């Protein structure tokens, strides 16, 4: 079964990356980023529930421009992962498996993720 002589071509700069592939890679990257941010989320949640001082500390973070930027990036990661996940559900149900629709839905996911991020940006400003 293992054929060690199979040609391997993994030059990412020269491989054709259709939008569905970009989406798949982004699904993994956003997942890893969210995995890495789990401790920070739990820490801040715990701090905000622990004491009035902790609550003040967490809410005052929202005054910081840098924190808002991080929050927006996190929102983008989440929204992208969320909508790409819905797309995978649809593929599991054999909806839009063909190239034309697969491409369309991939663009919709990218657009929806960006749209949610822009809405978040407007709300924060």
């Amino acid at each position, binding site marked *: *079964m293992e054929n060690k002589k199979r040609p391997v071509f993994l030059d990412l700069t020269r491989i054709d990356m259709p939008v569905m592939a970009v989406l798949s890679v982004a699904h*993994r990257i956003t*997942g*890893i980023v*969210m*995995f890495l941010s*789990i*401790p920070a989320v*739990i820490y801040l*949640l*715990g701090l*905000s*529930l622990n*004491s*009035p001082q902790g*609550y*003040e500390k967490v809410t005052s973070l929202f005054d910081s421009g840098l924190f808002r930027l991080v929050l927006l990036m996190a929102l983008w990661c989440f929204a992208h992962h*969320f909508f790409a*996940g*819905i797309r995978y*559900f649809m*593929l*599991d*149900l*054999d909806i839009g*498996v063909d190239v034309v629709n697969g491409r369309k839905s991939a663009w919709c996911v990218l657009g929806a993720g960006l749209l949610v991020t822009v809405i978040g940006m407007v709300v924060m400003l």
Partner: protein
Amino acid sequence: MCVGRGTASDSYRHGGDVMSRKSIGLRTWLMQRLSAVYMMLFVVGFAIYFISNTPASFLEWRMMMANTFVAITATLFFLLLLVHAWIGMRDVIMDYIHIDGLRLLLLTGVGFALLGAAIWITKILLTVTV
């Protein structure tokens, strides 16, 4: 239905002769989707609830999270999130890390980190009292 249209890691593990372990890939595949459904419902539901009742003080925030229904659904959300993260990270590690020792080290590290996170978040969410 394309059940078990798997990740590369699934197909490595179920490459033909290990038929008896076939259901393991299916189970994780299903768990990844069931946890995703719950998380989607919780996030949308909680977001709507939070926006329509935005707490304005520490006490209000604490009261919101001390509510039994919120505490239980939120704890379940985080536990399923950690399961989801485990399956996702496991797939990614098994796809890209081919050095056995490093793979084992990363899988073990991620596993213990997620287990620790589970205990930490459960303790936080289930001990909120008003």
